[in-house]
């Protein structure tokens, strides 16, 4: 048979791609994002958080009343077109106060989580990375501190220091970092023997650089989950402190202090408890859903 040019046509390539094994490559974080998006509860939580944040920013300006404006003629009024969430015992607009309180409560949650992150990552990272005697001593300190009932610490710090937001951050940060330090240490211990760390060390990177640039970024998953779950816990604790009379002081307000004011008036003016309570619960739920969703999304084993 004679070979002619017509017989040597290039193959039609359009069909071959379908035979390729596998799917388009996704990075780990793309994968995480997709898994997170599929989790309805987590997405619901995320939407709630975004709405709450938006309201915390704009809410105090919407009703035309300020958070500390008192009007004794209008004290203890139920929700109406003038006062959307009613008024408190001093005639202050609860709508404005609830959203002003949202700022304080959310700030307590987020800033505490950030503070815990900083202390925990540094402490746990150093302890895990250097290991040996350093680790032994540092972890013994954590062990001793964590056998102290931590809410007693918070109470004592709050009693002794000047009341106010700064004290709340310090007190909460001072007790919550212990678990974060443990978590980070465990992660670092398991990562530091990996080849890429060895490679970085061979190239002469300093321990600090290896820790910050190579190890910590790879431990971010569990850390982010822990931080997300830390936020509602801090808000919860702040509410509890407010109820004991150790929270922010008037005329400032947090959801906790508003709710604890409402507790005393529950039989006569139930809305004074109802509104702050609803938002505390909603926030707790939203952050917990997001935290659980993130944990499932970040953990390849949990995928179905």
């Amino acid at each position, binding site marked *: 048979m004679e070979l002619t040019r017509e017989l040597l046509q290039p193959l039609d390539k359009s069909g071959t791609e379908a035979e390729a094994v596998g799917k388009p490559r996704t990075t780990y974080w793309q994968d995480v994002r997709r898994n997170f998006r599929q989790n309805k509860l987590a997405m619901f939580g995320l939407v709630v958080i975004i709405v709450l944040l938006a309201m915390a920013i704009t809410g105090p300006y919407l009703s035309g009343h300020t958070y500390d404006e008192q009007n004794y003629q209008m004290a203890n009024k139920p929700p109406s077109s003038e006062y959307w969430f009613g008024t408190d015992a001093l005639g202050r607009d609860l709508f404005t106060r609830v959203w002003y309180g949202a700022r304080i409560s959310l700030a307590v949650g987020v800033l505490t989580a950030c503070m815990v992150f900083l202390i925990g990552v540094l402490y746990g990272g150093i302890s895990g990375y250097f290991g040996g005697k350093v680790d032994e001593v540092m*972890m*013994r300190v954590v*062990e*001793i*501190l964590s*056998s*102290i*009932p931590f*809410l*007693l610490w918070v*109470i*004592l*710090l709050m*009693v*002794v220091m000047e009341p106010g937001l700064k004290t709340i951050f310090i007190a909460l940060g001072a007790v919550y970092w212990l678990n974060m330090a443990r978590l980070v240490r465990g992660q670092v211990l398991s990562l530091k023997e990996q080849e890429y760390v060895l490679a970085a060390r061979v190239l002469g990177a300093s321990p600090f650089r290896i820790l910050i640039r190579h190890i910590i970024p790879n431990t971010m998953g569990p850390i982010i989950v822990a931080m997300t779950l830390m936020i*509602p816990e801090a808000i*919860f604790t702040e*509410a*509890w402190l407010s*109820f*004991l*009379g*150790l929270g922010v002081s008037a005329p400032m307000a947090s959801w*906790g202090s508003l*709710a*604890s004011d*409402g*507790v005393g008036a*529950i*039989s006569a003016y*139930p809305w004074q*408890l109802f509104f702050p*309570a609803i938002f*505390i*619960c*909603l926030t*707790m*739920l939203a952050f*917990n859903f997001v935290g659980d969703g993130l944990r499932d999304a970040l953990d390849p084993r949990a995928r179905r």
Partner: protein
Amino acid sequence: MGHFIIRRLVSSILALLLIITFTFILVHMVPGGPFASEKQLPDSVMRNLEEKFHLNDPLWLQYVKYLGQVVKGDLGPSYKYENRTVNEFIRHGFPVSATLGALAVAIALVVGITLGIIAALRQNRWQDYLAMVIATIGFSAPSFIVASLLMFLFAYKIKIFPTAMWGTPAHAVLPSLALATLPTAFISRLIRANMIEVLQQDYIKTARSKGLSERVIIYKHALKNAILPVVTYLGPLIASIFTGSFVIEKIFAIPGIGRDFVIAITNRDYGLILGLTIFYAVFLMAMNLIVDLSYSLIDPRIKLTRGEG
């Protein structure tokens, strides 16, 4: 095992010393001193007070004296209530608080485990969703809100329980329910997750293929393993009961040490705060130690060894 106990004991004692020292320093750092709010008192009375509480001694001497007292079991005087010692407050209040706490633990365990089993056995059916909705609500509402809602519903609206105070069994119903909410929610979630996992294991399949009845499988085989993590949760459970008790005792006006503590905070009664803190710390740390040690007795697979604490 012996090594573990000793190490735990040593670190507990160190922690205790740390608490006593820090609380002492903190309380004495307070600007103006513990009697600052009583400015209207005549100088002679002030002098007597300071004499009585050794406030004129150098700080280290006060500390040594205080430490000596604490070791002997004397937690010192109240700074606000004349002639009342911290020990007296504890003697009156602790039985009340302990009763309330024990009731709450019992409710949390019974209700939590039941809800968890139901949810696991009816996974993704309405029973499961209902149980988990209850658990989620319990998980997300601070105890003072739960307490006031219970009080509003069952004492003001439907008058079946007294609103406050302590004495008859009816007085204990609402506070112990409110106190049990959060731990109940936690335990039911824990049991559900573990039950679902345990029920998928091979030994359950073996039990099924042997033809055992579903009841025997669930209660005798599965629950035994699913309940273990609840034991690890007992330490935090007791801690959450005690923090809850501050709030609950305040709301329901129950004469326990939780309420004393809250009143001491409001009064800035540093003697009482210091004494009760140490009492709480000892109590909770002892509880945690007992729980830790009991793991190995309950689950022989857990070995308490050196290394991870």
